[in-house]
Protein backbone atom coordinates (compact mmCIF):
# COMPACT_ATOMS: atom_id res chain seq x y z
CA UNK A 1 0.00 0.00 0.00
CA UNK A 2 2.78 2.35 0.87
CA UNK A 3 4.34 1.55 -2.46
CA UNK A 4 1.15 2.54 -4.20
CA UNK A 5 0.91 5.76 -2.25
CA UNK A 6 4.49 6.51 -2.97
CA UNK A 7 3.90 5.87 -6.61
CA UNK A 8 0.90 8.14 -6.59
CA UNK A 9 2.81 10.76 -4.80
CA UNK A 10 5.76 10.51 -7.07
CA UNK A 11 4.01 11.75 -10.15
CA UNK A 12 1.31 13.56 -8.30
CA UNK A 13 1.49 15.96 -5.48
CA UNK A 14 3.62 18.68 -6.96
CA UNK A 15 0.36 20.33 -7.82
CA UNK A 16 -0.57 20.37 -4.17
CA UNK A 17 1.98 22.92 -3.12
CA UNK A 18 2.99 24.39 -6.44
CA UNK A 19 2.74 28.16 -6.36
CA UNK A 20 0.64 30.02 -8.87
CA UNK A 21 2.97 29.79 -11.84
CA UNK A 22 3.66 33.19 -13.26
CA UNK A 23 4.25 33.78 -16.94
CA UNK A 24 7.86 34.79 -17.34
CA UNK A 25 9.09 36.51 -20.47
CA UNK A 26 12.57 36.85 -21.80
CA UNK A 27 14.13 38.31 -24.90
CA UNK A 28 15.40 35.58 -27.25
CA UNK A 29 19.03 34.86 -26.42
CA UNK A 30 21.69 36.16 -28.78
CA UNK A 31 23.20 33.62 -31.16
CA UNK A 32 26.80 32.82 -30.26
CA UNK A 33 29.04 30.18 -31.76
CA UNK A 34 31.09 28.73 -28.93
CA UNK A 35 34.28 26.80 -29.47
CA UNK A 36 32.90 24.13 -27.18
CA UNK A 37 29.63 23.58 -29.05
CA UNK A 38 28.86 20.23 -30.60
CA UNK A 39 30.24 16.72 -30.14
CA UNK A 40 33.76 17.77 -31.14
CA UNK A 41 33.79 21.04 -29.19
CA UNK A 42 36.75 22.03 -27.10
CA UNK A 43 37.75 24.94 -24.91
CA UNK A 44 39.89 27.71 -26.37
CA UNK A 45 42.62 28.00 -23.76
CA UNK A 46 43.39 31.62 -24.55
CA UNK A 47 39.74 32.49 -24.20
CA UNK A 48 39.67 30.74 -20.83
CA UNK A 49 42.66 32.75 -19.71
CA UNK A 50 41.02 36.01 -20.74
CA UNK A 51 37.81 34.93 -19.08
CA UNK A 52 39.64 34.11 -15.88
CA UNK A 53 41.12 37.58 -15.91
CA UNK A 54 37.67 39.12 -16.31
CA UNK A 55 36.37 36.98 -13.43
CA UNK A 56 39.28 37.92 -11.28
CA UNK A 57 39.27 41.65 -11.92
CA UNK A 58 35.53 42.26 -12.16
CA UNK A 59 33.24 39.48 -11.02
CA UNK A 60 35.19 38.24 -8.01
CA UNK A 61 34.45 41.50 -6.19
CA UNK A 62 31.00 40.11 -5.50
CA UNK A 63 30.73 36.54 -6.81
CA UNK A 64 32.48 33.55 -5.29
CA UNK A 65 33.82 30.58 -7.26
CA UNK A 66 34.06 28.13 -4.38
CA UNK A 67 34.14 24.88 -6.31
CA UNK A 68 37.24 25.82 -8.29
CA UNK A 69 40.52 25.05 -6.52
CA UNK A 70 43.67 26.69 -7.82
CA UNK A 71 45.01 23.39 -9.08
CA UNK A 72 41.90 23.03 -11.25
CA UNK A 73 43.20 25.94 -13.33
CA UNK A 74 46.13 23.75 -14.33
CA UNK A 75 44.32 20.50 -14.99
CA UNK A 76 43.98 19.29 -18.62
CA UNK A 77 41.38 21.39 -20.40
CA UNK A 78 41.88 24.26 -17.98
CA UNK A 79 43.06 27.81 -18.65
CA UNK A 80 46.63 27.27 -17.51
CA UNK A 81 47.26 23.66 -18.31
CA UNK A 82 50.75 23.09 -19.62
CA UNK A 83 51.84 19.58 -20.61
CA UNK A 84 55.42 20.22 -19.52
CA UNK A 85 54.35 20.10 -15.87
CA UNK A 86 53.73 16.65 -14.47
CA UNK A 87 50.77 17.72 -12.37
CA UNK A 88 48.74 20.86 -11.88
CA UNK A 89 50.38 21.28 -8.48
CA UNK A 90 53.75 21.77 -10.18
CA UNK A 91 52.40 24.27 -12.69
CA UNK A 92 54.29 27.53 -12.17
CA UNK A 93 51.45 29.78 -13.35
CA UNK A 94 48.97 28.09 -11.09
CA UNK A 95 51.29 28.32 -8.12
CA UNK A 96 51.91 31.99 -8.83
CA UNK A 97 48.20 32.71 -9.07
CA UNK A 98 47.50 30.88 -5.85
CA UNK A 99 50.24 32.78 -4.07
CA UNK A 100 48.45 36.05 -4.85
CA UNK A 101 45.45 35.07 -2.79
CA UNK A 102 44.96 34.88 0.93
CA UNK A 103 42.75 32.28 2.54
CA UNK A 104 41.52 32.04 6.12
CA UNK A 105 43.22 29.48 8.33
CA UNK A 106 44.18 28.79 11.94
CA UNK A 107 47.61 29.71 13.25
CA UNK A 108 49.34 26.41 14.04
CA UNK A 109 51.00 27.83 17.14
CA UNK A 110 48.36 30.01 18.76
CA UNK A 111 45.10 28.72 17.26
CA UNK A 112 44.05 32.23 16.23
CA UNK A 113 42.27 32.77 12.92
CA UNK A 114 44.73 34.13 10.36
CA UNK A 115 44.94 34.84 6.66
CA UNK A 116 47.66 32.83 4.95
CA UNK A 117 48.90 32.56 1.42
CA UNK A 118 46.84 30.14 -0.68
CA UNK A 119 48.30 26.96 -2.15
CA UNK A 120 47.15 24.97 -5.17
CA UNK A 121 45.10 22.78 -2.88
CA UNK A 122 42.93 25.67 -1.72
CA UNK A 123 39.65 26.70 -3.32
CA UNK A 124 39.28 30.26 -4.58
CA UNK A 125 38.41 32.37 -1.53
CA UNK A 126 35.00 34.04 -1.62
CA UNK A 127 34.70 37.85 -1.46
CA UNK A 128 32.37 37.56 1.53
CA UNK A 129 32.57 34.89 4.22
CA UNK A 130 28.91 33.93 3.73
CA UNK A 131 25.66 34.95 2.04
CA UNK A 132 24.42 36.97 4.98
CA UNK A 133 27.53 39.17 4.90
CA UNK A 134 27.15 39.60 1.14
CA UNK A 135 23.51 40.56 1.47
CA UNK A 136 24.28 43.00 4.26
CA UNK A 137 26.84 44.82 2.13
CA UNK A 138 25.37 44.53 -1.35
CA UNK A 139 21.64 44.35 -0.68
CA UNK A 140 21.40 40.90 -2.27
CA UNK A 141 23.47 37.74 -2.28
CA UNK A 142 25.22 37.31 -5.64
CA UNK A 143 25.16 33.62 -6.57
CA UNK A 144 28.32 31.53 -6.56
CA UNK A 145 29.46 31.13 -10.16
CA UNK A 146 30.98 27.65 -10.08
CA UNK A 147 27.86 26.08 -11.60
CA UNK A 148 26.15 29.16 -13.01
CA UNK A 149 26.48 27.99 -16.61
CA UNK A 150 24.69 24.73 -15.76
CA UNK A 151 22.14 26.29 -13.41
CA UNK A 152 20.58 28.60 -15.98
CA UNK A 153 18.70 27.78 -19.16
CA UNK A 154 20.90 28.70 -22.06
CA UNK A 155 24.10 28.44 -20.03
CA UNK A 156 26.95 30.57 -21.39
CA UNK A 157 24.72 32.02 -24.13
CA UNK A 158 22.37 33.28 -21.44
CA UNK A 159 25.23 34.72 -19.39
CA UNK A 160 26.60 36.49 -22.46
CA UNK A 161 23.19 37.84 -23.47
CA UNK A 162 22.44 39.00 -19.96
CA UNK A 163 25.72 40.84 -19.51
CA UNK A 164 25.83 42.53 -22.92
CA UNK A 165 22.06 43.03 -23.10
CA UNK A 166 21.27 46.07 -25.23
CA UNK A 167 24.30 48.08 -24.21
CA UNK A 168 25.40 49.99 -27.31
CA UNK A 169 28.84 49.11 -28.68
CA UNK A 170 31.64 51.50 -27.92
CA UNK A 171 30.39 52.37 -24.43
CA UNK A 172 33.49 53.68 -22.79
CA UNK A 173 33.46 54.61 -19.15
CA UNK A 174 30.91 53.17 -16.80
CA UNK A 175 27.73 51.77 -18.17
CA UNK A 176 24.63 52.66 -16.18
CA UNK A 177 21.90 50.63 -17.84
CA UNK A 178 21.50 47.36 -19.72
CA UNK A 179 18.80 48.72 -21.99
CA UNK A 180 16.70 51.84 -22.41
CA UNK A 181 13.89 51.87 -19.86
CA UNK A 182 10.71 50.73 -21.59
CA UNK A 183 7.71 53.06 -21.28
CA UNK A 184 5.61 52.54 -18.18
CA UNK A 185 8.15 50.48 -16.27
CA UNK A 186 8.93 51.48 -12.71
CA UNK A 187 12.43 50.35 -11.75
CA UNK A 188 13.08 50.22 -8.00
CA UNK A 189 16.04 52.23 -6.75
CA UNK A 190 19.33 50.41 -6.92
CA UNK A 191 18.05 47.89 -9.47
CA UNK A 192 18.17 47.60 -13.22
CA UNK A 193 15.99 46.48 -16.09
CA UNK A 194 17.39 43.67 -18.25
CA UNK A 195 15.40 42.24 -21.19
CA UNK A 196 17.33 38.96 -21.13
CA UNK A 197 16.49 38.09 -17.54
CA UNK A 198 13.46 35.82 -17.40
CA UNK A 199 10.93 37.72 -15.35
CA UNK A 200 7.39 38.92 -15.01
CA UNK A 201 7.12 42.68 -15.13
CA UNK A 202 3.34 42.90 -14.98
CA UNK A 203 3.54 43.99 -11.36
CA UNK A 204 6.27 46.56 -11.98
CA UNK A 205 4.39 48.92 -14.26
CA UNK A 206 3.04 52.31 -13.26
CA UNK A 207 -0.41 51.90 -11.74
CA UNK A 208 -3.14 51.77 -14.34
CA UNK A 209 -0.72 50.96 -17.18
CA UNK A 210 -2.63 49.66 -20.18
CA UNK A 211 0.11 49.38 -22.75
CA UNK A 212 2.34 46.38 -23.55
CA UNK A 213 4.31 44.76 -20.74
CA UNK A 214 8.02 44.71 -21.60
CA UNK A 215 9.84 41.37 -21.77
CA UNK A 216 12.56 40.64 -19.25
CA UNK A 217 13.01 41.30 -15.57
CA UNK A 218 14.61 43.39 -12.87
CA UNK A 219 18.14 42.51 -11.74
CA UNK A 220 20.07 43.80 -8.74
CA UNK A 221 23.46 43.61 -10.48
CA UNK A 222 24.63 46.83 -12.17
CA UNK A 223 26.05 46.34 -15.68
CA UNK A 224 29.43 44.88 -14.72
CA UNK A 225 31.43 45.36 -17.89
CA UNK A 226 32.57 48.28 -20.00
CA UNK A 227 34.92 48.66 -22.91
CA UNK A 228 38.52 48.54 -21.76
CA UNK A 229 37.64 47.48 -18.25
CA UNK A 230 40.00 44.50 -18.43
CA UNK A 231 43.25 44.64 -20.38
CA UNK A 232 43.90 41.36 -22.13
CA UNK A 233 47.46 40.06 -22.08
CA UNK A 234 47.20 38.60 -25.56
CA UNK A 235 46.29 41.98 -27.00
CA UNK A 236 42.70 41.15 -27.90
CA UNK A 237 40.51 44.24 -28.00
CA UNK A 238 38.66 44.40 -24.72
CA UNK A 239 35.19 45.35 -25.86
CA UNK A 240 32.20 44.49 -23.71
CA UNK A 241 31.33 41.89 -26.28
CA UNK A 242 34.74 40.21 -26.05
CA UNK A 243 34.89 40.41 -22.27
CA UNK A 244 31.43 38.95 -21.94
CA UNK A 245 32.13 36.08 -24.33
CA UNK A 246 35.37 35.27 -22.59
CA UNK A 247 33.95 35.30 -19.09
CA UNK A 248 30.95 33.23 -20.24
CA UNK A 249 33.32 30.67 -21.74
CA UNK A 250 35.37 30.65 -18.55
CA UNK A 251 32.22 30.08 -16.49
CA UNK A 252 31.23 27.26 -18.80
CA UNK A 253 34.61 25.67 -18.11
CA UNK A 254 34.16 26.25 -14.38
CA UNK A 255 30.88 24.35 -14.41
CA UNK A 256 32.10 21.57 -16.72
CA UNK A 257 35.90 21.18 -16.54
CA UNK A 258 35.70 17.59 -17.78
CA UNK A 259 33.92 18.43 -21.01
CA UNK A 260 36.83 17.80 -23.33
CA UNK A 261 37.75 14.51 -21.70
CA UNK A 262 34.11 13.50 -21.84
CA UNK A 263 33.65 14.25 -25.52
CA UNK A 264 36.91 12.58 -26.48
CA UNK A 265 36.01 9.45 -24.59
CA UNK A 266 32.54 9.64 -26.11
CA UNK A 267 33.94 9.54 -29.62
CA UNK A 268 35.98 6.46 -28.79
CA UNK A 269 33.04 4.77 -27.12
CA UNK A 270 30.72 5.46 -30.06
CA UNK A 271 33.18 4.04 -32.54
CA UNK A 272 33.65 0.98 -30.40
CA UNK A 273 29.91 0.49 -29.96
CA UNK A 274 29.20 0.82 -33.65
CA UNK A 275 31.91 -1.70 -34.40
CA UNK A 276 30.77 -4.01 -31.63
CA UNK A 277 27.15 -3.81 -32.73
CA UNK A 278 28.18 -4.66 -36.27
CA UNK A 279 30.18 -7.67 -35.18
CA UNK A 280 27.41 -8.85 -32.88
CA UNK A 281 24.88 -8.49 -35.67
CA UNK A 282 26.99 -10.65 -37.95
CA UNK A 283 27.43 -13.14 -35.17
CA UNK A 284 23.68 -13.17 -34.67
CA UNK A 285 22.97 -13.75 -38.33
CA UNK A 286 25.60 -16.48 -38.41
CA UNK A 287 24.21 -18.31 -35.41
CA UNK A 288 20.66 -18.06 -36.68
CA UNK A 289 21.43 -18.93 -40.28
CA UNK A 290 19.69 -22.28 -40.25
CA UNK A 291 16.67 -21.29 -38.25
CA UNK A 292 13.49 -20.29 -40.02
CA UNK A 293 12.11 -17.64 -37.72
CA UNK A 294 10.54 -15.22 -40.17
Amino acid sequence: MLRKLTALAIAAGLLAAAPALAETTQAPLKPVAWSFDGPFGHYDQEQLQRGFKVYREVCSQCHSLKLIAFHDLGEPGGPFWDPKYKTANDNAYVKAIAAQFKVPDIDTDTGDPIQRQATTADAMPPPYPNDIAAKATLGGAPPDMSLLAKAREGGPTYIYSLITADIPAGSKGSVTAYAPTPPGLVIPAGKYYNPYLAGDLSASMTPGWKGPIPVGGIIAMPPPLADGKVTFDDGKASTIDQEAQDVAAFLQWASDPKMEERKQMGLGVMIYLLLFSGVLYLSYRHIWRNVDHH
Partner: protein
Amino acid sequence: MAESVAGASPDTHEAPDPSRRDFINIAAIALAAGGVAAVAWPLVDQMNPSADTLALSSIEYDVSKVPLGQEVTLLWRKQPLFVRHRTPAEIQAAVSAEHDPSAVFKDPQPDEARVKPGKAEWLIIVGVCTHLGCTPAFGGGPFGGYLCHCHGSVYDTSGRIRSGPAPKNLAVPDYTFLTDTHIKVG
Protein backbone atom coordinates in the same frame (compact mmCIF):
# COMPACT_ATOMS: atom_id res chain seq x y z
CA MET B 1 7.49 -20.59 -48.80
CA ALA B 2 10.06 -21.30 -46.17
CA GLU B 3 10.41 -24.90 -45.22
CA SER B 4 9.06 -25.14 -41.74
CA VAL B 5 10.53 -28.52 -40.86
CA ALA B 6 14.04 -28.40 -42.19
CA GLY B 7 15.96 -25.65 -40.44
CA ALA B 8 13.32 -25.08 -37.79
CA SER B 9 15.80 -26.16 -35.22
CA PRO B 10 19.54 -26.44 -35.28
CA ASP B 11 19.90 -29.54 -37.36
CA THR B 12 23.13 -31.14 -36.44
CA HIS B 13 23.13 -33.49 -39.41
CA GLU B 14 23.00 -30.84 -42.05
CA ALA B 15 24.63 -27.80 -40.46
CA PRO B 16 27.38 -27.38 -37.90
CA ASP B 17 26.55 -26.70 -34.26
CA PRO B 18 25.71 -22.97 -34.09
CA SER B 19 27.76 -22.41 -30.98
CA ARG B 20 30.91 -23.59 -32.71
CA ARG B 21 33.56 -20.99 -32.22
CA ASP B 22 33.52 -19.49 -35.69
CA PHE B 23 35.59 -16.45 -36.36
CA ILE B 24 32.74 -13.98 -36.08
CA ASN B 25 31.76 -15.39 -32.70
CA ILE B 26 35.34 -15.20 -31.49
CA ALA B 27 35.54 -11.60 -32.71
CA ALA B 28 32.37 -10.75 -30.83
CA ILE B 29 33.62 -12.34 -27.63
CA ALA B 30 37.00 -10.63 -27.96
CA LEU B 31 35.41 -7.22 -28.44
CA ALA B 32 33.14 -7.88 -25.48
CA ALA B 33 36.12 -8.78 -23.31
CA GLY B 34 37.87 -5.59 -24.38
CA GLY B 35 34.78 -3.60 -23.51
CA VAL B 36 34.53 -5.20 -20.09
CA ALA B 37 38.17 -4.39 -19.36
CA ALA B 38 37.69 -0.79 -20.50
CA VAL B 39 34.68 -0.46 -18.24
CA ALA B 40 36.41 -2.11 -15.29
CA TRP B 41 39.30 0.35 -15.20
CA PRO B 42 37.33 3.51 -14.23
CA LEU B 43 35.44 1.49 -11.64
CA VAL B 44 38.74 0.57 -10.01
CA ASP B 45 40.58 3.84 -10.60
CA GLN B 46 37.87 5.84 -8.87
CA MET B 47 39.14 4.36 -5.63
CA ASN B 48 42.58 5.88 -6.20
CA PRO B 49 43.20 9.23 -4.52
CA SER B 50 41.05 11.96 -6.07
CA ALA B 51 42.33 15.26 -7.44
CA ASP B 52 41.77 17.19 -4.24
CA THR B 53 43.65 14.59 -2.22
CA LEU B 54 46.50 14.68 -4.70
CA ALA B 55 46.60 18.48 -4.46
CA LEU B 56 47.48 18.02 -0.83
CA SER B 57 50.09 15.37 -1.65
CA SER B 58 53.00 17.75 -1.70
CA ILE B 59 53.88 20.62 0.57
CA GLU B 60 56.58 23.25 0.63
CA TYR B 61 58.35 24.64 3.62
CA ASP B 62 60.99 27.19 4.48
CA VAL B 63 63.41 25.21 6.64
CA SER B 64 65.25 28.31 7.86
CA LYS B 65 62.37 28.67 10.30
CA VAL B 66 63.67 25.72 12.32
CA PRO B 67 66.22 26.77 14.98
CA LEU B 68 69.39 24.74 15.37
CA GLY B 69 68.94 21.61 17.43
CA GLN B 70 65.18 21.71 17.20
CA GLU B 71 62.49 20.09 15.14
CA VAL B 72 59.23 21.15 13.51
CA THR B 73 56.38 18.69 12.85
CA LEU B 74 54.45 19.37 9.66
CA LEU B 75 51.33 17.64 8.39
CA TRP B 76 52.11 15.89 5.10
CA ARG B 77 49.55 13.56 3.46
CA LYS B 78 47.71 13.66 6.77
CA GLN B 79 50.74 12.24 8.60
CA PRO B 80 53.45 13.86 10.77
CA LEU B 81 56.60 14.94 8.97
CA PHE B 82 59.67 15.75 11.11
CA VAL B 83 61.90 18.58 9.88
CA ARG B 84 64.91 18.39 12.18
CA HIS B 85 67.74 20.94 12.20
CA ARG B 86 70.59 18.74 13.43
CA THR B 87 73.54 20.04 15.44
CA PRO B 88 77.04 19.07 14.29
CA ALA B 89 77.25 16.78 17.33
CA GLU B 90 74.14 14.94 16.25
CA ILE B 91 75.42 14.53 12.72
CA GLN B 92 78.72 13.30 14.07
CA ALA B 93 77.00 10.77 16.33
CA ALA B 94 75.01 9.40 13.40
CA VAL B 95 78.02 9.05 11.13
CA SER B 96 80.45 7.61 13.65
CA ALA B 97 77.98 4.93 14.72
CA GLU B 98 78.49 3.39 11.29
CA HIS B 99 82.09 2.65 12.19
CA ASP B 100 81.28 1.36 15.66
CA PRO B 101 81.52 -2.44 15.60
CA SER B 102 79.29 -2.80 18.63
CA ALA B 103 76.43 -0.81 17.07
CA VAL B 104 73.53 -2.96 15.90
CA PHE B 105 71.59 -1.88 12.79
CA LYS B 106 68.44 -3.78 11.95
CA ASP B 107 68.09 -1.77 8.73
CA PRO B 108 71.62 -0.64 7.82
CA GLN B 109 71.81 2.61 5.92
CA PRO B 110 74.53 5.29 5.85
CA ASP B 111 73.50 8.68 7.18
CA GLU B 112 74.49 10.41 3.94
CA ALA B 113 71.89 8.32 2.09
CA ARG B 114 69.20 9.80 4.31
CA VAL B 115 69.99 13.50 3.68
CA LYS B 116 70.73 15.70 0.70
CA PRO B 117 74.40 16.32 -0.21
CA GLY B 118 75.67 19.45 1.49
CA LYS B 119 72.50 19.64 3.58
CA ALA B 120 73.30 17.07 6.24
CA GLU B 121 72.00 19.43 8.94
CA TRP B 122 68.46 18.87 7.66
CA LEU B 123 66.89 15.55 8.51
CA ILE B 124 63.47 15.22 6.94
CA ILE B 125 61.67 12.03 7.86
CA VAL B 126 58.14 10.72 8.19
CA GLY B 127 57.21 10.66 11.85
CA VAL B 128 55.48 7.31 11.76
CA CYS B 129 57.05 4.46 13.71
CA THR B 130 57.68 1.56 11.34
CA HIS B 131 56.42 -0.90 13.95
CA LEU B 132 52.71 -0.13 14.26
CA GLY B 133 52.40 3.55 13.32
CA CYS B 134 52.69 5.64 16.50
CA THR B 135 54.44 9.01 16.44
CA PRO B 136 57.90 8.77 18.02
CA ALA B 137 58.98 11.45 20.51
CA PHE B 138 61.80 13.85 19.68
CA GLY B 139 65.03 13.39 21.61
CA GLY B 140 64.08 10.31 23.60
CA GLY B 141 66.13 7.18 23.93
CA PRO B 142 69.86 6.63 24.48
CA PHE B 143 70.90 7.97 21.06
CA GLY B 144 69.19 11.33 21.36
CA GLY B 145 67.17 10.56 18.24
CA TYR B 146 63.64 9.38 18.85
CA LEU B 147 61.81 7.12 21.24
CA CYS B 148 58.48 5.58 20.40
CA HIS B 149 56.41 5.32 23.61
CA CYS B 150 54.07 2.65 22.31
CA HIS B 151 56.41 -0.34 22.29
CA GLY B 152 59.84 1.12 23.02
CA SER B 153 61.44 1.41 19.58
CA VAL B 154 64.57 3.58 19.73
CA TYR B 155 65.87 5.56 16.74
CA ASP B 156 69.16 7.47 16.42
CA THR B 157 69.83 11.01 15.21
CA SER B 158 69.52 9.79 11.66
CA GLY B 159 66.13 8.22 12.32
CA ARG B 160 67.53 4.71 12.03
CA ILE B 161 66.12 1.92 14.17
CA ARG B 162 68.61 0.92 16.82
CA SER B 163 66.58 -1.15 19.28
CA GLY B 164 63.03 -2.20 19.85
CA PRO B 165 60.47 -4.00 17.71
CA ALA B 166 60.37 -1.64 14.69
CA PRO B 167 61.75 -3.39 11.59
CA LYS B 168 62.79 -0.43 9.44
CA ASN B 169 64.31 3.04 9.73
CA LEU B 170 61.97 6.03 9.80
CA ALA B 171 61.04 6.67 6.19
CA VAL B 172 62.70 9.45 4.21
CA PRO B 173 60.18 10.93 1.74
CA ASP B 174 60.86 12.19 -1.75
CA TYR B 175 61.94 15.80 -1.32
CA THR B 176 64.03 18.45 -3.04
CA PHE B 177 65.59 21.75 -2.13
CA LEU B 178 64.00 24.30 -4.47
CA THR B 179 66.32 26.96 -3.08
CA ASP B 180 68.85 26.89 -0.29
CA THR B 181 66.15 26.96 2.33
CA HIS B 182 62.95 26.04 0.59
CA ILE B 183 62.00 22.37 0.38
CA LYS B 184 59.24 20.67 -1.49
CA VAL B 185 58.16 17.32 -0.08
CA GLY B 186 56.24 14.82 -2.20
